[in-house]
């Protein structure tokens, strides 16, 4: 395990971090990402390779920059007027941060699921069909196929197949979250970003979401932000630890949770600072 460690910034010992490069294919390659909110630097020179078709967890205390990082990957920070971003995020040979990037197309490739389930005030069917319709699918049979496939992939089909035209608001919180995952999957994203996807759910719904994530990672790349370290340890194969806008350590989750290299990671995962 020691051999795969390299320092991310060999030229700058002050920025040297414990970084173990992922073994397989890379999905997202982030280079020197900085994000400002007004004058405050929220992300400091982040460089990280997110492995393809794996679950990568981002952990760290509140305000450490992990959600800002997640929101950079589908340009959600564009919606915040004071936010300014520099650096590069490469996905499939394109720089996501390029000014010419078609953000609608980007968000088709990079889906997002939020902390609180946020279904549209529509039927279950229309929630899932929304994205494909926006992207030009109008054929009813094709839409029906996409809706079924997406609901199946989100492991909620069996629970809702007989009531697809009921309001999404009639579902339980856990079901609503899986519906939101189905809605994100309906446009066939390559990457699914999940921002605390289970923090508002009960333990059983949480475990269902985690099980679903494990199934989905065979097809797509998942990046999850979570405050729940046990969840990060359970679901992810790689983990990045953020602190005060910096990526302190990145590597296989087994390493991060059993033998972290950086004292600050050690202190955080053992619950020794607040």
């Amino acid at each position, binding site marked *: 395990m020691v051999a795969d460690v390299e320092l991310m910034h060999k030229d700058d010992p002050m920025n040297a971090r414990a970084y173990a490069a992922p073994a397989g294919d890379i999905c997202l390659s982030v280079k020197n990402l900085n994000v400002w909110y007004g004058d405050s630097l929220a992300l400091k020179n982040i460089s990280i390779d997110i492995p393809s078709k794996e679950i990568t967890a981002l952990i760290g205390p509140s305000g450490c920059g992990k959600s800002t990082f997640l929101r950079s990957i589908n340009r959600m920070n564009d919606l915040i007027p004071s936010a300014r971003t520099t650096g590069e995020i490469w996905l499939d040979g394109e720089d996501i941060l390029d000014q010419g990037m078609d953000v609608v197309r980007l968000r088709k490739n990079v889906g997002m699921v939020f902390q609180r389930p946020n279904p549209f005030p529509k039927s279950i069917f229309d929630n899932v069909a929304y994205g494909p319709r926006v992207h030009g699918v109008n054929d009813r049979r094709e839409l029906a196929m996409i809706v079924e496939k997406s609901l199946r992939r989100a492991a909620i089909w069996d629970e809702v197949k007989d009531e697809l035209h009921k309001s999404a608001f009639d579902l339980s919180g856990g079901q609503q979250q899986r519906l939101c995952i189905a809605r994100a999957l309906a446009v066939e994203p390559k990457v699914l970003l999940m921002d605390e996807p289970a923090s508002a759910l009960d333990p059983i719904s949480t475990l269902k979401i985690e099980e679903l994530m494990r199934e989905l990672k065979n097809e797509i790349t998942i990046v999850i932000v979570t405050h729940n370290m046990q969840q990060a340890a359970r679901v992810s194969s790689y983990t990045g630890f953020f602190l*005060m806008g910096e990526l302190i350590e990145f590597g296989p989750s087994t390493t991060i*949770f*059993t033998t*972290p290299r950086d004292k600050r990671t050690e202190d955080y*995962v*053992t619950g020794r600072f607040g």
Partner: protein
Amino acid sequence: MDTVQTRHSFDEELQQMKQDILKMGSVVEEMLAGAVKALRERDKNLADEVIAKDDIVDEYNLNIEQTCLRLLALQQPMARDLRTIAAALYIIKDVERMGDYALDIAKAAKKLADYEPITQLIKIPRMAEIVQKMLRDSLRAYVNHDIEVISEIAQEDDEVDILYRQVRDGMIGLIKDNPKSAAQAVELILAARYLERIADHITNIGERISYMETGHLRELH
């Protein structure tokens, strides 16, 4: 970054668990000293006292194991905490086994008390002294997160191995010279063998401490 005490009660329980391991170790140390003294001085009463102490060791073993499982389930320890508790689960098994060996030596002492001595015991008490020191050092190293002492333990284990072979060869010589001494000589070979095994268990503890501190497993023997 300010480090504040966020897991006070968990830390207290971890400290308590470590202290219990030290206490368990000190009981085994007393058993070892007593067993070898009983062997040398043919003291049946002392041997019985040693035998009685094994229950205390077994109780520590069970209680510490329960504490470890409870901490794992309820506190979900990570990183160093996780390695410390995992090490404890291994260490108490090794210490418990050492107690069993000390008990076996005490039983041998009781048997030998009925015979006229065939030889003066020098090397076996020397072995016992070394393993007692090894045990004490290894458990202190565990509690104090100190890996310096581990290479010393490996050296002492080699010394114990040499003494064991000397005792064994000496006893074989005695049996050859005087076949009637065989019953006693075999008991003494076994006693030396138990001490040699105890030293091996202590090197296991050294390996666990090494893993706990570095995250890497290192074979010591």
